[in-house]
Structure formats: C-alpha cells, structure tokens
C-alpha cells in the first residue's frame, strides 16, 4: 500500500503519478550516468609529485598496524605508492569499501520512503531491527553478564575461556540472585508461565520507584525550589545591566509561579489564580516555541550528517575533514 500517495495533496490522478515516477527514474538515470563518467575520469588524491588518480567510489584505505589495520587517508596511500609502487603496507580494504557501499545503499533505501513506501525501504528496516537487537544482546552478554554473573559463579571457567582479565577466584553465590531474577523474567515469554515473571518485574519496579521518589524530590523539587532564593534585584556594571538583570530575575520568578498556577487542578481558573494561569500559558507557549526550534535544529543536523556521509565517504565529492 502506498500510503503517502493516498494522502491528499499527492498526485491521486494515476496519469500524474505515472508521469512523476517516470521523471524520478529519468533524474536518477542522469545522476547515475554522471557518476559513471566521473568514475571514468577519476579523482586525484595526494598532492604534488605523490598525486595518484583513483577510479571509484567509497574506497577505504588501511595501513597494517600491529595485529589489525587502521584507516588512513587516501593521500597516505598515494604517498606510499609514489615511494614504492609495489608496497603492500597501505592498501584498499575490501571489507570496508564494501561496507561504505552497503552503508550508502542502505541510506538511499531508507530515503526512498520519501518517494513512496517500497520493498527496498522495508528491507532496510527489517535488517536494522534484527541487527540492533543482535548487537544489543551480544553487548549486554559480554559487557555485563560475563563479568557480573558468570564470572562470579564460575570464575575459573570464565577466566580460562571468556574473560582473561578476571580477578575473582572464588565463586560468589549471591550472583545466583540476579541470575534467578533473569530466569524468572524470561518466563514472561511463555504464555503459561508469564505470571512468574511478575516477581522480578515487581522487584525492578519497586527499586526503581524508590530511587525515583528520592532523586526527583532531591534534584527536581528541592534543588529547583532553592534557586528561587535568587535575588530579584541584580546589580550590574551599568544602569542597563542592572535594569536588564533585575527584569530577567523578576520574569523568571513570575514565570515559575504562574506556570505552577496553570497546573493547579483543584482551583477553578478565576480571579487571581485565573490571571496567573493566563500568564502561565504565555510562558508555556514561549517555552514550547523554543523547544520547537531546538527540535527542528536537531532533526536538520541529523540530515546534514547523512548528506555529508553520502557526499564525502561514498561519492568523494567533498573532503572537508581530509579523509582522502
């Protein structure tokens, strides 16, 4: 189902939709042809006498170092080749170059949803769901379970096969408690046994709400109320600074009190409470406006990062960070 095509404001007329699709394909074909031409011409890397021409996109160069490889700019490769054309120290990394291509294609696959819902987008989405879950699970096992649970229950085995840096040598049977909690939690997967999972859940919820109860009051109630001791009269180096500082201090206090008044629910918004609540709503609107601006700022920053990846790492159109 192409949901977004069905929304009002989209070309519902099939002829228009067909024309739009044809246009899209034509644009993509032109872009692809331009890229092929540019690959054929090649890109110069390195400078001066070391300069080399490479044909292709998304290439990653690595230098052998110690047990592994580290990524180096293409210019390093150009220098190495200029010094010794047969060198094997700096080379194109197959897996990483394939990786950049995979990343670029996946980026485009997700972006293709903007045109309309399609199988390529769904494929990328399915991949990321599986990959993220697998990644998080293996990270949780290695970083928390191995040391904190296995290492305590079977230190000898864990040290020999899993975690050579382990220092504990004697089993700590208290570690059975979290293991048991975890096992009970896993019972939630079974329809018949899911009630057993209620106990670890109750434990976690209880601990968590105890902590939250104390910390919210300490940090967000008490310490925040303490800021209201800020004097309303602020002296600055100039008359303007004094007036400005004082005005700001007054406005902050008025704002906190009036927004609080807006959130009184057992009092009808009439009389002075109503007046305060009306001021409160203006403060809330300004707060939301600023929040709106900041959120938009964040969204655009993320898009910029993806564009930079496509233009820099993949297509080598720009090189602001000196990667090639």
């Amino acid at each position, binding site marked *: 189902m192409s949901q977004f095509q069905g929304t009002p404001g989209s070309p519902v007329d099939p002829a228009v939709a067909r024309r739009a699709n044809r246009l899209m394909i034509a644009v993509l074909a032109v872009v692809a042809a331009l890229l092929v031409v540019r690959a054929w011409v090649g890109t110069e890397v390195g400078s001066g006498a070391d300069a080399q021409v490479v044909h292709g996109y998304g290439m990653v160069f690595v230098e052998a170092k110690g047990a592994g490889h580290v990524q180096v700019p293409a210019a390093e490769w150009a220098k190495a080749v200029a010094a010794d054309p047969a060198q094997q120290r700096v080379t194109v990394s197959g897996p990483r170059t394939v990786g950049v291509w995979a990343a670029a294609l996946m980026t485009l696959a997700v972006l293709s949803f903007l045109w309309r819902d399609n199988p390529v987008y769904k494929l990328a989405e399915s991949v990321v769901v599986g990959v993220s879950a697998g990644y998080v699970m293996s990270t949780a096992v290695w970083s928390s379970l191995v040391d904190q649970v296995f*290492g305590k229950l079977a230190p000898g085995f864990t040290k020999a096969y899993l975690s050579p840096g382990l220092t504990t040598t004697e089993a700590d049977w208290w570690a059975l408690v979290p293991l048991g909690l975890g096992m009970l939690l896993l019972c939630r997967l079974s329809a018949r046994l899911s009630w057993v999972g209620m106990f670890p859940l109750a434990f976690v919820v209880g601990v968590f709400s105890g902590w939250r109860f104390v910390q919210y009051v300490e940090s967000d109630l008490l310490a925040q109320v303490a800021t209201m001791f800020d004097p309303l009269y602020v002296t600055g180096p100039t008359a303007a600074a004094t007036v400005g500082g004082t005005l700001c201090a007054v406005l902050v206090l008025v704002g906190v009190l009036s927004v609080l008044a807006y959130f009184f629910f057992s009092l009808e918004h009439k009389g002075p409470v109503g007046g305060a609540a009306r001021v409160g709503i203006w403060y809330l609107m300004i707060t939301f406006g600023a929040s709106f601006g900041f959120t938009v700022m964040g969204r655009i920053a993320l898009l910029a990062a993806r564009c930079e990846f496509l233009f820099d790492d993949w297509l080598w159109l720009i090189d602001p960070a000196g990667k090639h």
Partner: protein
Amino acid sequence: MASHGGTPSAFARLDRIDRRWIFLAMFVAVAAPILWVGVTGKTFPEAPTPAVQGAFDAVESLPSGARVLVSMDFDPASAGELQPMATAIVRHCVLRGHSICAMTLWPAGGPIIDGTMQDVLGDRPDWTYGERWVNLGYRAGFEGVMKQMNSRVSLAYATDVRQTPLAEIPMLKGITGIADFDLLVSISAGYAGAKEWVQYSVSPTLTGAKPLKFVAGSTGVQTPQLIPYYPNQMAGILGAIKGAAEYEYLVNEAVLKADPAAVVPPRFQEAQRRMAPQLFGHVLMVALIVLGNVVFFGLRGRESRA
C-alpha cells in the same frame, strides 16, 4: 480543498502541492550548503552563549592533570548532533592536560568512545592508555550503574574494556566514588543520560562537602529540559549542533591564541561546518511555516467571501 470556478486559485494549488516537493526543498537546502562548504571550507564565526562558555570554563579552570569522567550516552542515530561535541570536549581536555576516563550507558555507545578517542589522540602518541586515558566501556543498568559508581566505580566496572582490573590502572589511583573525579561530562541523547546524571550523581553531592562539577552536551530535543539545571546543578550545557559549534570555536580560538601559527585540522571544525546547512534548513522551515499560513488564511478568506 476549496477551489472556485473552473481553474483552482494559486492558493488552492499550493495547498494541494505534492509533499515530495517539500521534501526535495529540504534536501536541497541541506545538501547544497554542505557541498558549498565542502568545496570552499568556509565557516561562520560563533558567539558563545553563557551556557557553552560555562562548559568551556569548567574544563579550562581545572588544574592540568585533573581527572575527567566522560560518559558518552548516545548511539549512532544521534551521532550527527553529538559526535562533534564529544570530539570537542575530549580534545579540550587533552589540550588542557586532563586525564580522561570514558564510559557509556548506551549499549551502542562502545564504538563511539573508540572512534572519538582515535580522532582526538591520533596524533598524540604521548597520551598513553592507562596513564592518561582509560575506556571503561558499556555497562547495563542505567541508574543502577550510577548508584554503584556513586559509592565505588569498581562495583560497576571490575575491569576496563582491555580487561585490566581497575586497581591496576594508574590514572584511576585514588578514585573511589564518582565524586573523586574533578569533572563529570555526559554527552547525552536521552534516557539514560544527562538528566539522570544530574538526579542520581550530581544533586546528592550538592549538600555535601565536595559538589561534583557537571557539564552536559545534549541533542536539540533534550536541551530545553536541561536548561533549569544551569547554572546550579550543572556548570554548562552544549545545546544541539549550535552548542557544539560554539564549543569548537572556543577551543580553536584558544589554540590559536596560544600559538598564532597553529593550523586547526579540519576534522575539529565539523560542527562549525554544519552551521551552513543548518542556516538554510532553518530559513526554509520559517519560510514554509509562513507560506503555509498565507495559504491557509488566503483560502479561508476566499471561503468566507464565497
């Protein structure tokens, strides 16, 4: 919606515009400046806001050799906004001679620590691992990790990521609880992150003998929610990519002030470069809202007249 007579009015046509044109406009507004900046390398000057200056001063004012705990509480989904902050703050710490202890509360934060440290320390072989910096990696448990670290860091982390027991790491000598660090930094994309650090680790120390100094870098979405904690519960906030750009600018200015002949590597100007696509994106957003309202009220005016 409403079109009167045979040909729809300009308003009605605009109102029914295919939203993909708007998508295209946004793409161009962001992509074109990136290409332009990528080719010319130009950036805008930044004027630091007080919260960013506060963060900078917090790092700057520590005596050289201070120990800073940096928690990189984000994953690649938010790296576009937060990576430049992480790089800039870590770089500033290294320039000032502070030792860095890195950790993360997000499962996908591990490689981010590696990447950041490699970026900053690539040309600083003198910054030996264990002596000047250490990577504790990820630990599951969110606030639970904070609670443990408040009393003893070694409760949460038995070893660092390189399997060295904490007691054998030189730079952590004398560190028991989190308050023994001279500064806590959290680069945070949400839960668990800066807000929880304030609540669980910073605020409890405020009534004690040694309050823990705290600086946060935060995504645009989260920043407004952290503002009330400044300056009482945190020394500074880097808000969104603009905060990162200001911080980068401050660090680079400090480098140039110390040595006017120094060349700032372009990889340390990432956020400043991003302010160009940001500028055009924001202007487009304002224009779209204004245009949308013109169309809306234009159509409404016609309807009421008709």
